[in-house]
């Protein structure tokens, strides 16, 4: 420990350090988020003009038009947002319990598959009865699909992330099998529109608005989910289990039972989403029916910190970006990836802004001058 050694190390003061913020008022956090979006738009504009030479303002205009341009586009956006919201709502109770249900995709598909099965094999039933049977069976199927990993988690503490993820592939393969069984015409690889003429098992249409019923049902689910999570005893138990198993046991909550019950609910709502897609809007089934919503829903739920109200906003944002991006690609005949790049940048900034809401960067103060003499 010589003394020149001591003087050698000097003023290597860190340039900044990160500290956790205590609390931020809502208007401050929203300012941060809006600033993040503006910044993201500016960066997207620069990238757009550098890589494509297009005028960024008109690209943004196109994006906007893609989502809101015509009445039809607005309805499509509404339908997309609603179904995405439905899947996200389904995942929320599980996520609040810190059960990472990544099986939304499979749970939606299995609900859809059961719906299609009913429409094909039970079409002789009276219409109202058929719809009730479809609804009940598809919801039950979704519940079972989520219940299996939940049972294993509750009983043997298996890893739910892997288990639910794997269940997706099982569901996709099942759907692929039945698509071949049902394909019309043979060899086309398509089921086509089911019951096109008689429309057995099709959900009724309200007036001329063929997506309105779905949107209304999902609005109802949103409110119900909000009340369930916030005010019911079940919702309270979910929060306690999510925070700490030992607290839950301490007050006599049976953790395994809550896990199973909550996942049955989570899967059931996914099954409902599958039912609404097949019976309400698509009237067909493909392996890509869920279209990644089981995963996009994860992001919607996280962005909104698992609050159903916030998820209306976040699913709207993601729905808008997706519709807008595909419009850009179509209009300017760009690769689909270009729209995805823009979407990615915007999401990156929005998610990144959460860091600045929870943490603070403190830069070095001008105090460390002592060592200079």
């Amino acid at each position, binding site marked *: 420990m010589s003394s020149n050694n001591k003087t050698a190390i000097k003023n290597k003061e860190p340039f900044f350090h990160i500290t956790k913020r205590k609390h931020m008022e809502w208007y401050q956090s929203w300012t941060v988020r809006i600033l993040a979006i503006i910044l993201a738009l500016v960066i997207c504009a620069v990238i757009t003009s550098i890589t494509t030479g297009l005028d960024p303002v008109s690209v943004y205009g196109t994006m906007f038009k893609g989502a809101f341009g015509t009445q039809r586009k607005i309805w499509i956006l509404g339908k997309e947002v609603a179904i995405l919201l439905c899947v996200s709502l389904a995942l929320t109770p599980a996520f609040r319990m810190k059960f990472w249900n990544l099986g939304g995709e499979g749970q939606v598909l299995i609900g859809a598959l059961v719906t299609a099965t009913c429409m094909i094999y039970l079409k002789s039933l009276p219409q109202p009865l058929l719809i009730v049977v479809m609804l009940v069976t598809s919801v039950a199927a979704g519940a079972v699909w989520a219940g299996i990993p939940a049972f294993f988690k509750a009983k043997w503490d298996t890893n739910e992330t892997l288990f639910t993820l794997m269940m997706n592939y099982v569901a996709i393969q099942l759907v692929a099998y039945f698509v071949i069984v049902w394909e019309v015409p043979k060899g086309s690889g398509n089921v086509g529109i089911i019951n096109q003429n008689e429309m057995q098992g099709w959900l009724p249409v309200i007036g001329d608005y063929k997506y309105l019923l779905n949107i209304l049902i999902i609005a109802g689910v949103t409110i119900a989910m909000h009340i369930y999570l916030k005010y019911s*005893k079940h919702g309270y138990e979910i929060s*306690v289990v999510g925070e*700490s198993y030992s*607290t839950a046991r*301490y007050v*006599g909550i049976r953790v395994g039972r809550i896990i199973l019950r909550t996942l049955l609910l989570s899967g059931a709502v996914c099954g409902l989403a599958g039912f609404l897609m097949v019976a309400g809007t698509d009237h067909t089934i493909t392996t890509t029916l869920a279209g990644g919503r089981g995963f996009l829903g994860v992001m919607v739920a996280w962005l909104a910190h698992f609050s159903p109200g916030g998820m209306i906003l976040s699913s709207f944002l993601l729905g808008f970006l997706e519709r807008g991006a595909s419009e850009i690609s179509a209009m300017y005949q760009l690769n689909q990836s270009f729209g995805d790049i823009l979407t990615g940048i915007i999401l990156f900034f929005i998610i990144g802004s959460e860091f600045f809401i929870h943490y603070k960067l403190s830069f070095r103060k001008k105090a460390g001058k*002592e060592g200079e003499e």
Partner: protein
Amino acid sequence: MDNRIAAVSMRNIKKVFGTVQANDGVNLDIYRGEILSLLGENGSGKTTLMNMLSGIYYPDEGQIYIDGNPVTISSPYEAFTYGIGMIHQHFKLVDVFTAAENIVLGLKEPGGLDLAKASEKIRQICDNYGFDVDPNQKVYNMSVSQKQTVEIVKVLYRGADILILDEPTAVLTPQEVDKLFAVLRNMREDGKAIVIITHKLHEVEELSDRVAVLRKGRFIGDMITKETNAQEMTNMMVGHEVKLNIERPEPQNVKPRIRVDGLRVRSRDGILKLDDVSFTAYAGEILGVAGISGCGQKELLESIAGLKRVRSGTITYINDDGTEEDITGRNPVDIAAKGVALSFVPEDRLGMGLVANMDITDNMMLRSFRKGRSVFTDQKTPKELAQKVVDELDVKTSGLSTPVSRLSGGNVQKILVGREISSSPTVLLSAYVVRGLDINSSYTIYDLINQQKKNGVAVIYVGEDLDVLLELCDRILVLCGGKVSGIVDGPTADKRQIGMMMTRLGGETSDEQ
């Protein structure tokens, strides 16, 4: 000793965490050949200050001098180059390595991994100061006190001559404390500068030459230990006059309440944690439970509370009229359904007793949310209860909707204890209720517990501070390795005797080991 140069001088040190001023303009001198006690309540900034000296934190403002030269310490490694070594409260050892392997781990000098040479050097250090370390023993086979010794040797091995020990006695038995103090004195004679961080006054008096007091991040003063006394130090620590004795009202109306018979409990890995434990807890008295940490205290309380599977033995609740309820192996809801009002303040407050991210109101309904037939929770009653607890126990919070994780330790504990006693229990189980609490909060808690005792509650108090157990409890049950080592009478018990019983069943051999 007059014109000595301080080994370390800290001048005008400031450190802010978020909105908390952890250190505010602290000046401190540390001398060689002297043991300095850094005294202060929890949260007074002692550990933060020492962490800045050992390179874990960097001060926002202020300057540190080593032997009169201004220095910048921005990492623990740099602290070592100045001869500063810190022994933390939570040991930083690799369990599957031997003592010697742990000691040389991370050394950058060439030949640092020559274990034979290292063992030789370790033996030398041990002989010098009177440590007892086997360089080839694996850490997982060591007792807490041995692990601590390895930590100290590790620091000495790296040539530290300024040693900082953060609450070194918290986990030791009285006998182990004596041994530790002896080696610390040897090190002082060898001219090392030693700082111990503590909040126990008798340790300050017994060991140190000088004492420096911090309060709420500020330096209050330093004194020669011989020239001060416990009362003066407490007043400096707390900032106002406090009385230092705990009440022990005479037990009234004592009758059996909980009878534990031949209790045997295994941990999840099948290790026997409680072996043939039998005792009776009486209504209207406080039964203390003493023991080295991890000797079955937790399992004992959890099995009574219905949170642990009981292998054999029975737990019986005795009603006022003498009728008995068998509550062995029942879960907490069943126990409550039998009309047994049992409250439990667990060791892990935020991880078990409370939900850290929920607000005060939601935490109040943890026990009672099932009440009523409605599918919705009752939000009104818990809110009233929350307000009552906050008012009566003087909880400092910005509102009832503040998450409990944002409250200070003392306030968290008040919320938990407040909720548990609000259900007017007949049995109160408590584990380490004052751990980490400042003096005022601790005394509030002692008062609450005494109040429960006066109300005829059977209190089982698991504690770690023997002095408190001796002052508060009517009887003390001593656990040793999951067995009952004996039950002694509180007012007449002797600390050393309990210390012996903690390390050896019955504790009958009173000779030096």
